[in-house]
Structures are given as structure tokens and as C-alpha cells.
């Protein structure tokens, strides 16, 4: 069936008049990085095409919140692109198990990555790889440095200092203290809960305890981040309940908000939009001197659509992703996406340097629910979107939110039963 589908799709492509040059192969790339569209089209694609005549690239991103559904249905329909940008862990693993992503274990370029980097796109036993690791992102808070100078504020290091800073900005009144909305829900979970949480559950230690069934989501260390989120609502802009992610980005880059809870992936976009100085600080710890933990998430890989008629060209492209040429290009074109390959890379962007310097000071951890815990129904990761948004809106108490998630997880995950 799949083979027939492929040939038919290919034939349909030709019939429908997508006039291709005789030998030229065009690889279509599926991605959720719509913010990077101009970087791909103006920098990465020309560099690749110059080195590989005969292969053309077409970068076709979908909006982040729709990416997975759109990709899944396109893969089922046989209309997906040749190269697929992979979410970390289970979402991509499922695609591989359905036979929709090609096995890349024997790809030469795989030698350029550490096992840690590869773990996000390997089968549970680590024997097969299905996506080439591409980048990780680090969570934190970006702030308007001009606003901080104007108000005489310092980067906060503890939670108390953090709220003192927010109070000071609110008292001054010329800036919205924090730019965040809950309309799209995922910001609340990703840039809220997963951002500040590792300091409470001590990063990997807490995450692994959850997977092992030694900790529960109703334990204090998993409820505490919700309690902090509940306090945020006083500092968000008017009408944050219907504020979307792009709204928040615009609010911050237009200079109307002082702090933006987010991560390193915003750097490239913000550089082109904001006309003020920006700084960044890691999630504040509970008490001065505590070890800090950051969410340093293996975020993005690239795999090959198993049904792609251009597998050979696709592998060429994926191999190129492992080269130091790509790593340098990518790291500086999209500062804030830190390459995962072993290639030596120097970062030019000061904000990106700031983010990556935290790796030296703090312990790294990945997002809490991406590995194993989101395999069942209800899906823990999706639930955390709703509960985090509810807690910030005041629609649910931190304890209720934690209880709901724990009940959902326990309903299908044996170690938690």
C-alpha cells in the first residue's frame, strides 16, 4: 500500500504540473519554526544548494500549535514533505513505530552526536535512531534592559527578588511587568510551568522520580510551580486571558512590557523586531545560594519521511546537518537554538552567549513530561497546557490542577498506579 501510494503520489505530482528540471530533486521540509522562514530561505538553503547542485530545498513551516496534527494527517495522506522536523521523544517515536519515519541508524552523520543528544530520537533500547539531533533550547526570562536601567532594577536571582522586581515595575506603571497570555495555553505550560519548575523538583532528579513512580504530581515540588504561576496573573497585561502568543511577542518587542518569560528560541526574532537592549536571567531560585536548575531541552531534530521518493537526496541533506559548516551557520543564523552536534561552534550573539553560559552555573534538565509520561490518554503534556493556563487565569487552584494531572497519569501509567 505504502509503495503504491508513493508512486501514485509521485505520479500525481508530475501530472499536476510541478515542472521540475530533469535531474533536480526538490526536498520539501516540514517544520514548526515559522519564525525562521527568512533565515532558511536567505541563509541556510543557499549555503546547502551551493554545495550540493542538483538538490533544491523548500522550507514549508506550519504554525507551532498546529504542526503535529497537520504533520500526522499529511503523513497518513502521503502528502507530507520529504524532510520532517522532529519533536523530541515520544511524538517522533510514535511516527517511527508507525513506519512513517525512516531508520537513520546507519547514517554517517550520526557519528557527530553524543548519546545524550541522540537519546531524544532513539528507540527506548537505544538501538535505532530516526532523527538527526539539531538543536536544544534553554528556558529563562528575557527582559527589556533599557526599562530595567530606567527603573533602576537588577536581575533577580531569588523568587522573592523576582516578585519585588515585578512589584516595582507595576508601581511605576509605564510598563506591563510581564508579557504573557493564556489564550494559546502552551505558553503557560512551556514558558511557565516547565520554565520555573526544575528549580523546585531539582531537574532530572524529580523528572526521573516521576517516571519511576517514586514521586507524584501532587507532591509539594510539583505543586509549588503552580503556586508561583498563580501569583503571576497580577503582573500580566490587561486582558491576558485572550492574549495569544504572537500578541505577547509583539507586546514585548514594541517595548510595552518589561519581562518576557520564554526561552532562547526567541532571540533571533526579537533581535529583528526590538529596538532596545535585551538581557536574560535564569529562573529564580527559592533561596539565595540554592543550586539552580534550567530547562535545557533537546527540542528539534530532523528525520526522513519513510515514503519520500527522494530518500537518497534526503540522506545527503541529513548528513550535511551533522557538518560543522551547518552547525556554525545555524547557531549564528538562529541564535538561541544551540546545535547538538560535536562540532566546535562560536556564538556571536551576546544574548545567546548569556543563555548558554547558564549550562556552566546550573544543572540542565529537559521538559518534564516529554519522555514516556505523555504516551497515554489523557496525554499529560496536553493536560499540563490546560491546567497551567487555568491556574494562571485563576480558574483552578494549584492543588486541583496537580490532582487532575496525577489522576490522569495514574489512569494509564502503571508505575504511578
Amino acid at each position: 500500500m505504502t509503495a503504491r501510494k508513493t508512486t501514485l503520489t509521485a505520479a500525481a505530482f508530475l501530472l499536476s504540473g510541478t515542472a521540475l528540471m530533469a535531474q533536480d530533486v526538490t526536498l520539501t521540509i516540514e517544520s514548526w519554526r515559522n519564525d525562521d522562514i527568512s533565515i532558511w530561505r536567505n541563509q541556510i538553503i543557499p549555503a546547502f544548494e551551493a554545495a550540493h547542485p542538483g538538490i533544491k530545498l523548500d522550507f514549508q513551516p506550519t504554525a507551532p500549535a498546529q504542526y503535529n496534527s497537520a504533520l500526522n494527517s499529511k503523513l497518513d495522506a502521503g502528502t507530507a514533505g520529504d524532510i520532517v522536523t522532529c519533536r523530541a521523544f515520544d511524538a517522533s517515536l510514535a511516527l517511527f513505530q508507525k513506519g512513517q519515519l525512516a531508520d537513520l541508524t546507519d547514517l554517517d552523520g550520526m557519528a557527530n552526536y553524543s548519546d545524550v543528544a541522540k537519546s531524544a530520537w532513539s528507540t527506548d533500547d537505544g538501538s535505532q535512531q530516526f532523527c538527526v539531533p539539531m538543536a536544544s533550547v534553554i528556558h529563562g526570562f528575557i527582559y527589556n534592559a533599557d526599562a530595567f536601567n530606567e527603573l533602576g532594577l537588577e536581575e533577580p536571582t531569588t523568587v522573592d527578588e523576582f516578585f519585588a522586581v515585578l512589584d516595582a515595575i507595576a508601581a511605576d506603571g509605564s510598563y506591563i511587568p510581564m508579557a504573557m497570555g493564556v489564550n494559546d495555553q502552551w505558553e503557560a505550560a512551556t514558558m511557565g510551568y516547565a520554565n520555573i519548575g526544575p528549580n523546585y523538583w531539582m531537574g532530572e532528579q524529580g523528572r526521573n522520580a516521576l517516571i519511576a513512580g517514586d514521586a507524584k504530581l501532587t507532591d509539594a515540588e510539583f505543586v509549588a510551580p503552580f503556586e508561583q504561576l498563580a501569583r503571576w496573573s497580577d503582573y500580566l497585561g490587561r486582558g491576558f486571558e485572550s492574549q495569544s502568543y504572537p500578541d505577547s511577542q509583539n507586546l514585548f518587542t514594541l517595548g510595552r512590557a518589561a519581562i518576557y518569560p520564554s526561552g532562547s528560541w526567541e532571540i533571533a526574532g526579537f533581535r529583528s523586531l526590538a529596538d532596545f537592549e535585551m538581557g536574560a536571567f535564569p529562573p529564580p531560585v527559592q533561596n539565595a545560594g540554592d543550586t539552580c536548575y534550567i530547562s535545557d531541552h533537546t527540542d528539534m531534530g530532523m528525520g526522513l519521511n519513510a515514503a519520500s521518493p527522494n530518500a537518497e537526496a534526503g540522506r545527503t541533506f541529513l548528513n550535511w546537518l551533522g557538518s560543522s559548516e551547518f552547525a556554525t551557520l545555524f547557531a549564528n543564523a538562529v541564535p538561541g537554538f544551540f546545535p547538538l552536534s560535536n562540532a566546535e561552534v562560536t556564538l556571536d550573539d551576546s544574548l545567546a552567549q548569556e543563555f548558554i553560559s547558564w549550562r556552566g552555573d546550573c544543572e540542565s534538565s529537559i521538559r518534564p513530561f516529554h519522555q514516556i509520561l505523555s504516551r497515554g490518554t489523557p496525554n499529560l503534556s496536553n493536560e499540563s497546557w490546560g491546567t497551567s493556563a487555568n491556574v494562571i487565569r485563576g480558574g483552578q487552584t494549584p492543588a486541583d490542577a496537580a490532582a487532575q494531572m496525577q489522576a490522569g497519569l495514574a489512569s494509564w501509567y502503571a508505575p504511578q498506579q
Partner: protein
Amino acid sequence: MSDRARKRPFRWHIVVFLAPAVLIYTAIMIIPLFGTLNLSLFTRAEDGSRIFVGLQNFQTLFGDRRWSDAFWNATGNNLWFFIIHMLVQNPIGIALAAILSTPKLRFAAFYRTAIFIPAILSFVIVGFVWKLILSPLWGVAPTFMDALGLGNWFAPWLGLEESALTTLALISVWQFVGIPMMLIYAALLSIPDEVLEAAEMDGITGASQFWKIKLPLILPTIGIISILTFVGNFNAFDLIYVTQGALAGPNFTTDILGSYLFRTFFGFQLQLGDPHMGATVATVMFAIILVGVSIYLFGVQTRLRRYQF
């Protein structure tokens, strides 16, 4: 008519008239729909193969609180969505059509054309436009309300649990009010002048003419509109998807059957789609719509008289 009952050669023209429509309709719509109904009786095994499970998926949908709560929530929301359309969209549509059909009204063509324009815009446009207008950040709505002295009444309606669904229903009404208006308008125009002249002779004019003469005559059209609204509302999905996303926030208060089906069928983010449960939801939706339409067809339409002019 009686002559046609006599024995006569096979009437090929009936076949010719019916064949194209029936063939395309059967091949592209009915057979795939049966495919979906069939899917709901199966599930996917660990190894990826399809196994027959009978009505077990339906048992899960109605028996498992995680599925049933979401399902009844979506059904309830959908009902409210429909009620708002019936209470707001259709009366406004009828009123506008009645006003438009005033004899010798100037600029009638202009009004008619303008009021219908939102209906031709895609959900992508409508959803985006209203999101922008109601956005507290962009401030069109707040600025307006400040100008009217109602500044304090502004709220981020699309983001509040109490008001999000109603707001979306009203946006949908804004978009589609032109449709009942056009249908009623056409029906009003097709009332023969003799009937209205006779009414005027009897001194029935103005509003009472509308209530006593015109309204009864356009009842069949109102019936069709109601059923179209019902079917349209219970199939709605796009507007919710474009404005609130597949999670139908805040807290699923804007989740209707269409968005629930979409999430189940195609999955969302880390949640993988489940075609079998999706097909189950689709089958139940089909049943709901079938019941609603049957109530109309057998309970209402048979009582409406048909007029031949």
C-alpha cells in the same frame, strides 16, 4: 397525472436525470461515510493491525468518564451555540429581509449586497479579524468602548470561560446572518402581488400584514433555514479552530462536537490521533444530527402547507 400510471416503456430519461448525481454522491460521499461507521467498530492492536471490537468504542465513549465528560461538555456547548443562532441569527435575518422587501425602498440592492459580504469571507479571515478586534492588545474594541463611555465594560471575552462560547457564537452569527436574510428575502419576493393586494383591500397592512399574511407564507423557508442552521452548527469546527485552536480554550468551554472530533481523530501535539475513537465520535454526531433532522421532517415539515403559485 393519471395517464402516467398507464403501462408504458421503461422511462430511460429518469435514469439519465438521476444517474450523474446519484453516482458521484454515492461514490464520494456515502461509501466513504460507511467506511467511517465501519472504522468505529474496530481498534488498533499493539502491533498495528486492526481488530474488531464491536460496540466497545461506544462503551468507552459513554462509560469512561474521561471520554464522556468531554463528550457531554461538547454536546452541551454545541446546543448553546445552536440556540444562540436560532435566537439571534434567524430573527435578525428575518427582520432584515422584511425591511429590505419594503416596496420602493431605495438602496435596497446596496444594503443587501453589503450585509451579505461577511458570509462570503472564509473562517480564516473572520476568525482572525475578530480576534484582532477583540484583542485587548490591539485595542480596537477597548478604544471604541472608551469612546462610548463603556470602557470599564470591556473584557477579554474570548479568554473568559463565561463568555468565550457566546462570543464565538455571536461572531458566527455576524458572519452568517446574510444567509437567512437572502433566503427569506427570496421567499418574501415570491409572494404573489395578488395576495398582498387582497390583504390590503381587507385593511391588513404594515406590521400586521407581515405577521398575518407573509409570515405564514414563508414558514416553509424558515423551516429549511432552521434545519440548515442545525446541521451547520452541529458540523461547525473551523471558527473554533481558527480562533481558539484545537484545545478549544479556555478550559474547553468552547469545545463543540466538531473540535472534539478533530482532536480525537487527528490528535493534538503529543497526543496521537485515534481514527477508531474518532470514527466513534463521528458516528454519534451522525446519530444526533439524524435525530434532529427526523424531528423536523416528521414533526414539523409535514404540517407545513406547500403553496403552488
